[in-house]
């Protein structure tokens, strides 16, 4: 069954377009059909044939289904660029949607939905309404998906014309394929809406579970994925659901199996009977193991998911560790994931066999895999106390092979083992020192130096060893320099003799005067001060007992794990990140997708970056569910300046050691009144003429870092890049910074899309956001910004009264924190409510208490952490009391900062 279509590609003569035009208008059917094929061939190789629009559309009225499909395909591609001409096709579409042949009716309605031209959308409504009630299930299943398409183009239209109700009716359709597509369509619409549209009641549940038995494999996946959101009322219902779903574990389609596993795991949370739970675990194990016989790409997805599953329910696969042993021909990405799971399943019972495997892998040829295998041995040592000694002896055997990267990796993990089991295995230090001169990787070097410093008193020639590193101190990477500094100080404190004393002077000199690395400098000055003022205190600090470490390098936070488990089989479970960290919905009605549009050699991703699309000009008519005003959608207007902001960079170094730093002088320039100006974070005086103002903002449910660059220097600045330090919410740039060249005296504004949970910092929550920006002409600029918590409030933070009360009661009183703001006046209730609602703090109720008014609000930050808020005030009088209750009271301080800002505004 092979065709010869390639001949259509081979017409590259001059004057091709006029020739095609002529052929398209030929009186002979066959010639016209061939011409359309040539047009499609040209389109396929990326040539612009949009100028033939009218001629191609003229061929649309045909009995020939193949030709019709080709013309439709052409329309999907070019209607956007010819919106006015596209209207020519409408009549045929409408006519085709009433054709006696259901294939043509479905084709018409399917294609119209793909033409993202507003004018056509209006004409789509009537045919779609008809097709949703068509006699033929093939047409209905196509129409069901078309509702989601229409919603994507114009949500309001879908709501106004009652399509949502029609779609919900299709859930009761007698055809399983129609039901499945209606479910997919509704789930998609729900995902993009803040209103409750697709709520699964126990009634729909039973209908869908029945349809599950009859629809296609893909349909089963839609249904299972949608149903996994359903919360059973009690353990009994959960058991019933699970009983209906378990047969799916026997399906040949891996996606069906994984989605069934997801649903069973969800319901298991409610099941109280340990027998039932144990039984279910037993039932899930074999299908999960069988996933490892699937195609490697599927195995990869399965392994990423199994990684999550064993964190929540380790018993399921406790006895199956052998199936995760690597096969010689496994692709490297499969091997890496298997290794991760082997570590998770390693136990005292199986460790001997596991170590034998790791040792085998450590002698393979793929460097990354070998390193990971060595590291795995170390992690097992930290995890299993009783096996630590065996792990170490394997590591020593590997060191003896003298393969450079194996040795280095082994030293890195041995450092951790020393920390985990102090005073136990130091006898091997001598062996380690033998490989000293082969170390050339920073992390391995740093680890070895740490070991020497930590055990300086046991290593006779510790001073000689360290000294050998000192010569190259200035050339070493920062990581090594820091360790050298600390190790030398340790050595000095432990052996305060002449040799070390000289060394420490060399090091301190190197690390203060000779360096421009602030971290190193800070640490060196601190040591210096400690050593010169109070050596005993220095001992207490530097030689303090260290907290015990454990192997948590790959354990996920329980709330995140919950969310990921609810997302089994999806990308979220593959990335181990919540969906909002990577989902970027870009509205694209007017975005062109032609290939030719972008000249060769532009920066990758420049033209289509989300930041570019998100600016006002490209925004489509928004759905009613989006609140921001038109003004908010505009790109940030270039502003020359704003009043000097409070967020000047505090100079830690200056504070600490009294070094004088050039004072921060704010530049005084007239502020333009357009829009609220961004706070200046890097004044021009500090930034050698570059002034940076920036703020986090939220638009259409997306986080952006809105930045304004003003170039007051004499040079053209370009090549801007940005980096965010680890922070409490893991905020990071979702893409590269897109800033054009900035001429002297001009400015540029940009909206940088941001993601959450990328680089989380440990420690107590803080609003600090440290930013580094660099360009090709200047040094790196560091400045601090503040994360306003309310920017993180999500659009779905509204709570029903009942669930508000319930949540309030379910949280212990210790989670309630309150604060008074004596200076704040609430003068207009309405304005305040609007103000808060615009920041996704949703009003729930108001109650009078004597002369005071008490307001209740709800808000939510990503990962579903709710805030229940109570504001008490006397209207018009100064003084507001704010109480907040949240599962995570640590962040309430940040919350108060936010509410203060909001109420003052």
């Amino acid at each position, binding site marked *: 069954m092979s065709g010869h279509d390639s001949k259509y590609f081979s017409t590259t003569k001059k004057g091709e377009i006029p020739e095609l035009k002529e052929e398209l208008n030929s009186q002979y059917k066959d010639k016209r059909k061939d011409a359309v094929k040539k047009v499609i061939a040209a389109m*396929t190789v990326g040539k612009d044939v949009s100028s033939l629009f009218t001629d191609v559309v003229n061929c649309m009225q045909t009995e020939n289904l193949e030709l019709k499909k080709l013309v439709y395909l052409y329309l999907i591609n070019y209607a956007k660029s010819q919106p006015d001409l596209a209207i020519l096709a409408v009549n045929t579409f409408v006519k085709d949607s009433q054709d006696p042949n259901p294939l043509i009716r479905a084709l018409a309605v399917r294609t119209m939905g793909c033409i993202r031209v507003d004018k056509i959308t209006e004409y789509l409504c009537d045919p779609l309404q008809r097709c949703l009630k068509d006699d*033929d299930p093939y047409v209905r299943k196509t129409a069901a998906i078309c509702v989601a398409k229409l919603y994507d183009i114009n949500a309001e239209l879908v709501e106004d014309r009652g399509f949502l109700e029609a779609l919900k009716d299709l859930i009761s359709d007698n055809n399983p394929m129609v039901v499945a597509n209606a479910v997919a369509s509704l789930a998609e619409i729900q995902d993009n809406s803040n209103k409750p549209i697709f709520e699964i009641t126990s009634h729909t549940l039973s209908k869908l579970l029945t349809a599950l038995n009859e629809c296609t494999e893909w349909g089963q*996946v839609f249904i299972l994925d949608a149903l996994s959101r359903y919360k059973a009322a009690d353990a009994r219902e959960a058991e019933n659901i699970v009983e209906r779903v378990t047969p799916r574990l026997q399906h040949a389609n891996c*996606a069906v*199996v994984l989605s069934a596993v997801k649903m069973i795991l969800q319901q298991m949370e409610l099941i109280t009977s340990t027998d039932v739970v144990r039984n279910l675990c037993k039932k899930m194990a074999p299908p999960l193991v069988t996933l490892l016989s699937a195609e490697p790409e*599927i195995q990869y997805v399965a392994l990423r998911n199994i990684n999550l599953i064993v964190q929540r329910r380790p018993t399921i696969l406790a006895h199956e560790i052998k199936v995760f042993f690597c096969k010689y021909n496994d692709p490297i990405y499969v091997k890496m994931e298997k290794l991760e799971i082997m570590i998770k399943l390693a136990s005292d019972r199986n460790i001997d066999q596991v170590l034998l495997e790791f040792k085998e892998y450590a002698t393979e040829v793929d460097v990354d895999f070998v390193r990971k295998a060595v590291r795995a041995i170390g992690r097992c040592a930290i995890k299993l106390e009783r096996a630590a000694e065996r792990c170490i002896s394997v590591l020593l055997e590997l060191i003896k092979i003298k393969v450079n990267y194996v040795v280095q990796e082994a030293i890195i993990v041995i450092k951790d083992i020393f920390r985990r089991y102090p005073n136990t295995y130091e006898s091997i230090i001598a062996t380690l020192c033998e490989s000293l001169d082969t170390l050339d990787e920073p992390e391995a070097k740093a680890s070895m130096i740490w070991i020497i410093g930590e055990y300086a008193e046991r290593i006779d020639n510790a001073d000689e060893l360290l000294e050998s590193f000192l010569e190259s101190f200035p050339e070493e990477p920062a990581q090594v320099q820091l360790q050298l500094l600390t190790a030398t100080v340790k050595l000095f404190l432990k052996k305060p003799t002449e040799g070390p004393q000289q060394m420490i002077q060399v090091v301190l000199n190197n690390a203060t005067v000779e360096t421009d690395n602030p971290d190193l400098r800070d640490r060196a000055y601190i040591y210096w001060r400690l050593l010169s003022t109070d050596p005993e205190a220095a001992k207490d600090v530097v030689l303090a007992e260290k907290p015990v470490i454990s192997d948590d390098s790959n354990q996920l936070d329980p709330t995140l794990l919950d969310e990921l488990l609810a*997302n089994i089989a999806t*990308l979220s479970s593959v990335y181990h990140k919540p969906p909002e960290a990577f989902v970027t919905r870009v509205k694209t009605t007017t975005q062109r*997708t032609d290939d030719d549009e972008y000249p060769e050699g532009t920066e990758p*991703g420049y033209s289509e970056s989300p930041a570019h699309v998100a600016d006002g000009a490209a925004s489509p008519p928004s759905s009613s569910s989006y609140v921001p005003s038109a003004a908010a959608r505009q790109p940030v207007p270039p502003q020359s300046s704003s009043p000097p902001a409070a967020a000047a960079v505090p100079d830690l170094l200056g504070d600490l050691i009294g070094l004088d730093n050039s004072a921060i002088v704010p530049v005084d320039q007239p502020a333009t009144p357009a829009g609220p100006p961004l706070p200046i974070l890097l004044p021009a005086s500090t930034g050698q003429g570059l002034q940076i103002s920036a703020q986090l903002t939220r638009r259409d449910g997306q986080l952006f870092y809105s930045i304004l660059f003003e170039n007051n220097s004499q040079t053209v600045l370009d090549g801007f890049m940005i980096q965010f330090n680890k922070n409490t919410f893991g905020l990071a740039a979702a893409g590269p910074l897109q800033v054009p060249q900035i001429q002297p005296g001009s400015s540029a504004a940009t909206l940088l899309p941001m993601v959450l949970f990328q680089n989380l910092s440990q420690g107590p929550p803080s609003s600090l956001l440290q930013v580094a920006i660099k360009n090709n002409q200047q040094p790196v600029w560091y400045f601090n910004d503040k994360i306003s918590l309310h920017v993180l409030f999500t659009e779905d933070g509204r709570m029903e009264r009942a669930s508000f009360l319930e949540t309030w009661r379910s949280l212990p009183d210790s989670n309630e924190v309150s604060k008074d703001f004596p200076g704040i006046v609430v003068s207009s209730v309405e304005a305040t409510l609007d103000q808060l609602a615009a920041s996704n703090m949703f009003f729930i109720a108001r109650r009078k208490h004597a002369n005071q008014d008490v307001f209740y609000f709800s808000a939510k930050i990503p990962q579903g952490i709710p805030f229940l808020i109570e504001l008490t005030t006397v209207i018009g009088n100064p003084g507001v009391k704010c109480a907040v209750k949240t599962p995570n009271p640590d962040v309430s301080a940040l919350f108060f900062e936010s509410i203060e800002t909001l109420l003052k505004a």
Partner: protein
Amino acid sequence: MAGAASALFLLDIKGRVLIWRDYRGDVPASQAERFFTKLIEKEGDPQYQDPVVYENGVTYMFIQHSNVYLMVASRQNCNAASLLLFLHRAVDVFKHYFEELEEESLRDNFVVVYELLDEIMDFGFPQYTEAKILSEFIKTDAYRMEVTQRPPMAVTNAVSWRSEGIRYKKNEVFLDVVESVNILVNSNGQIIRSDVVGALKMRTYLSGMPECKLGLNDRLLLEAQGRTAKGKAIDLDDIKFHQCVRLARFENDRTISFIPPDGAFDLMTYRLSTQVKPLIWVEAQVEKHSRSRVEIMIKARSQYKERSTATNVIIELPVPSDATNPSIRTSMGSASYAPESDALVWKIKSFPGNKEYMLRAEFLLPSITAEDADPERKPPIRVKFEIPYFTVSGIQVRYLKIIEKSGYQALPWVRYITIAGEYELRLM
């Protein structure tokens, strides 16, 4: 948690777009192409690249088939398992249409490819991937003349894999039970993994809408029916069924009942993880006299009953990549040096049960070697074989009942065979 693909791309070996279908208009082909060509350039071997990659707001998922990549792009939290599997199914569909899926066949059939891409996926949701039924209403040039007036019932039917009105003069069913043995032996000679993956491969040539019922000597089934098996009953670890099998019914009373698709398909696959004695045991002694020669001795022993015979046995043993001048002697079969895979390949046409054969070989090694050469690849010994009329599990088809309303008699033919799957023995 809903989500779907934005676009599907068919790319050539360098990552350039051959054909693509834009489902949502939010991932331009230029962006995808730029990303993917860069990826291929960077990694060289896509084996090293995770099949799910995120860049600049878009997730790309891809598979490779001969000289073509199939890739979907998405901006949502879509079902990765479903979309990747869908790509594999798309390969099956294209293969059904064009015999082989490769760059040439895609170019030669681009019109049909577009039609298929329109039918198998809608708005990024996988829709329908039954090649046989698709070819009833999406036809290549040769069959274009027939006018299709409606989609086949099967597309939206509960029985979506079979059309009505199929007629055969002679109604026949062929059932092949194929068991592949996977084994992994570590360098200490311990068996660390051993399992059997079986498949019931069916070819049906049946008229109408036949109801089939299959009986196996499955212990749970026999117990459910309150019978004690005459022969031996077996326990199967995990069974997976083709979508035609009624899963709820199987869950209830372990009856395997179904209306089969027309033609070839895998009715069920199963797995057995009980440890079995390796059917062919291979021991190798490799003595490497550095910078002069390497001596190899292989012993291969068959550990099944004498009445069975393995055929087409191939034992592949890795040798150093710089080995030369082989001299090989065998007690059975023929052996040769395959320099392209740095291996010694020993072929034995027929290997009866309970026998032992030997091979001795010697290679010369160069007298000079690089000082600090990277560690050598250490592939395991690999063994291939087939043993007809034999299954490791002892699975038996007790009956295959075929009932059709026209009442014809259909003949089932059953064959059994065991083959080596991933059969690896690591060298010392």
